[in-house]
């Protein structure tokens, strides 16, 4: 009897419910939800597609940065003395070479085959060559009056038999020093007379000139070093607390990530990177937003989220002495919600209703979180440093599925690697 009743019940429901076509009306909003899911998948596939390209770009960037890092600093001023592509050490012991690097001067030297030393200043070649008068302070004075020269010719074309010609002081005086002349040898005024010969330069004059060059060179190098952006990678780990609206129901989470920073000028640093965050928190159900209609509302919600935090921050250095640096900063973070797990707690443990809700990769908040931080950095050496950074993250938009005002405070501890330190250890 009982079996018959059971069978009858089963049959009634089976027959009544197994052919429900057209009983549920089509709803466009449901398709919109599915389309959003399909679009999300396409975007993720797109990201995967672009990853190799992005990786290549990153590799090229690192290559350029690496070259910049290991490039000898002396080469930064090669243009001061060498336009022929040859690298000539800029030392006082090779003063003659300095001038010899000037194409015209080199040619002149070649034309002095048989003469000892080969230096321009040492061997006046031509009998027509008139002695140079010396501008004792900073430059060369050429005896041949400027008005005698017919034109200025660049030295970039073949300059056989074409040499620095003598010119009156007032002509050459427009160059601040011999350094200026040497730094721009192509613009030297020359006679187009094929009989021009190398000018003889007094040794003392050249010494003074080279001192000026060296002085200027050092200044330039120093300026370039200071003005050059400083790049650093930082590995960070950060315990933090997260709460909704306040920290009264906060829970402890953790972060781990890699940051890249670029110093701009003396004071500013721009930082970006990626931080993986494990963010648990609790909230009362009153703050929780859901499209799902609960028969019996839960009392509280425990959430556990996995977030990829992509910050872009600007820090301003307020103190920087010896090995200590303190800066304050702000910026915006983009949250990519990788996983969101929500657990519902009911007042009555026996209440029937959903206990968990889990979603993945459905919510993204681009530049939706305001970052505020204070950083202290202690340099271990010129390459490495330790960072301690108390920070706070304030939401500018609702975060996650339930659109909560999720705020976070914590202290990040990091190890920095300055990849192009200005001072070699």
């Amino acid at each position, binding site marked *: 009897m009982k079996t018959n009743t059971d069978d009858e019940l089963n049959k009634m429901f089976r027959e009544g419910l197994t052919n429900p076509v057209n009983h549920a009306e089509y*709803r466009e909003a449901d398709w919109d939800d599915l389309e959003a899911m399909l679009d999300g998948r396409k975007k993720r596939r797109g990201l995967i597609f672009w990853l190799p390209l992005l990786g290549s770009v990153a590799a090229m960037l690192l290559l350029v940065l690496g070259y910049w890092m290991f490039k000898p600093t002396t080469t930064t001023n090669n243009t001061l003395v060498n336009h022929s592509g040859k690298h000539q050490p800029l030392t006082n012991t090779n003063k003659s070479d300095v001038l010899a690097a000037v194409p015209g001067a080199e040619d002149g030297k070649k034309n002095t085959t048989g003469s000892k030393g080969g230096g321009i200043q040492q061997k006046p070649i031509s009998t027509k060559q008139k002695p140079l008068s010396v501008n004792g302070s900073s430059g060369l004075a050429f005896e041949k009056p400027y008005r005698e020269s017919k034109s200025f010719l660049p030295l970039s074309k073949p300059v056989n038999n074409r040499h620095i010609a003598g010119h009156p002081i007032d002509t050459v005086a427009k160059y601040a020093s011999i350094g200026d002349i040497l730094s721009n040898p192509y613009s030297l005024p020359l006679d187009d007379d094929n009989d021009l010969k190398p000018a003889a330069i007094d040794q003392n004059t050249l010494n003074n000139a080279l001192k000026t060059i060296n002085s200027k060179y050092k200044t330039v190098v120093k300026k370039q070093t200071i003005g050059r952006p400083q790049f650093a990678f930082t590995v960070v780990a950060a315990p933090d607390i997260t709460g909704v609206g306040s920290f009264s129901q906060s829970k402890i989470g953790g972060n781990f990530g890699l940051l890249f920073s670029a110093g701009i000028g003396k004071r500013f640093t721009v930082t970006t990177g990626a931080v993986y965050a494990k963010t648990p928190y609790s909230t009362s159900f009153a703050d929780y937003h859901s499209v799902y209609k609960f028969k019996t509302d839960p009392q509280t919600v425990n959430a556990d989220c996995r977030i990829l935090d992509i910050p872009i921050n600007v820090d301003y250095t307020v103190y920087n002495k010896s090995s200590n640096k303190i800066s304050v900063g702000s910026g915006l973070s983009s949250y990519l919600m990788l996983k969101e797990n929500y657990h519902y707690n009911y007042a009555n443990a026996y209440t029937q209703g959903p206990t968990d809700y889990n979603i993945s990769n459905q919510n993204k908040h681009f530049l939706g979180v305001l970052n505020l931080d204070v950083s202290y950095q202690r340099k271990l050496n010129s390459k490495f440093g330790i960072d301690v950074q108390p920070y706070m993250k304030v939401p500018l938009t609702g975060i996650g599925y339930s659109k909560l005002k999720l705020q976070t405070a914590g202290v990040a501890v990091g190890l920095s690697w300055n990849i192009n330190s200005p001072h070699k250890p």
Partner: protein
Amino acid sequence: MVEDDLHDLISGCIQQDRKSQKLLYKALYGFCMGICLRYAGNRYEAAEIMNTGFFKALTNIGKYDTDKPFKAWIGRIMMNTSVDYYRSNLKAANTEDIENAEHIGHEATIHSKLNYDELLKLVQQLPEAYRAVFNLFAIDGYTHDEIGEMLGINPGTSKSNLHKARHKLQQMISQTETTIYQAPGQNRQAPMMVVRQIAITDILSNRNIRR
């Protein structure tokens, strides 16, 4: 829509053509929603389950064997997705063994013939754990061993939950029958009216008449 028409749409879906995907979705919406409504507590849950199932189907449509009926394939996906949903969201549902099940003395006799909306409403009023087992056993034809494996419970629990589900359904139907006999002077429309008075909101919600 006949199977041949479906196969045209399926070809478009394999090419990830969005128009074909939408047409297929519209064509099978009622069928799939019908399955999901049985397993879900309400229309919102059912829509969520159905979309998850459709997402799985559309992203794995290349694995579909075209020699077999497509509706059976996607129906199976919907059922599996419903079970997954149950398992991930309703871990705390009733899981008593048969030994602890209360004795059910009176078995009601089925006198009335209820329509689809009323039957669906009755099933949806079951607790989640009972509903899942009843659907799988009574409607989809699985054994208790299979149900135990699918839901992550032991077969005894499955039997217990089925037993309780039937008892609760019979109770609800008996209430309807009682209402019928309390008004003997009324015609055959009376039980329908009673059921509608009880569950009119949920039924309309299931049919998307009221949003």
